[in-house]
């Protein structure tokens, strides 16, 4: 494999690992702290910027949590991909499953009351 292809591979790997890790963490905190970038009002079929209170019918924050986590993880991933290869060597591929798994367990813990009633 050429040096250029190696560099591209290393950058894609850095992006993938950092995106998976930061996305899981950012999504968890976006949900836990309600850092929704947008609020959707399904009854009105309207989006509002940031966290808004329900107007007519319920307010949905899930799309906002996805957007918040996606933007944060996207920026972190791109920055990681731009770093020199030696700076990203500490990124272990196992983080791509370990951190998301921890986030899933944390959600299970947060929502445990639904299964214990």
């Amino acid at each position, binding site marked *: 494999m050429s040096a250029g292809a190696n560099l591209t*591979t290393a950058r*894609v*790997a850095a*992006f*993938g*690992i950092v*995106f*998976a890790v930061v*996305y*899981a963490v950012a*999504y968890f905190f976006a*949900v836990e702290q309600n850092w929704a970038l947008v609020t*959707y009002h*399904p*009854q009105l079929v309207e989006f509002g910027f940031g966290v808004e209170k329900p107007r007519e*019918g*319920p307010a*949905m924050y*899930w*799309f906002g*949590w*996805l957007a918040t*986590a996606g933007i944060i*993880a996207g920026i972190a*991933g791109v920055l990681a991909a731009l770093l020199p290869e030696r700076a990203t060597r500490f990124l272990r*591929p*196992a983080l*791509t*499953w370990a951190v*998301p*798994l921890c*986030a*899933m367990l944390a*959600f*299970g813990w947060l*929502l445990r*009351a*639904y*299964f214990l*009633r």
Partner: protein
Amino acid sequence: MFTVLLIVHGLLAVALLGAITHQAASVLWPVTRPAGSFTGRFRSVAAPGYANAIVLLYLATFTLGGIIYTEYRIFVRPLVEDLRAWSAFGAFELKEHFAAIGMGMLPAYWYLWRRPPDGRTRAVVTALLAFIVWWNFLSGHILNNIRGFGS
């Protein structure tokens, strides 16, 4: 309209479920000799060839699910709360979070299947995605059964 989307969402989910189950089985329990049995043939698929399809199916299923979710929030969730079906309710709450976390894993998953296997990472990432897909499929199916088709 939403009924059609729900059916398409379900069909895409079935395709995704089949593809990722094949891939996970082949990477977690690889066949060591020519497969003669049904389970052996199930595990002996060319797993790397599934990765692109799985990413596309996940994105399509996720997008359709996001559209249907608005209908769920208005018409189905209040009913589930009225029925006090808390386990099903909690399972669906987990579904939305698991689906989101799975989205975040897709770039790494795609990359891991583009290169030669390196340790157990690829197998574990695939297994975790398979778990998410199975959880989401079953919890969505249960919620759909509670609400009832066309009711």
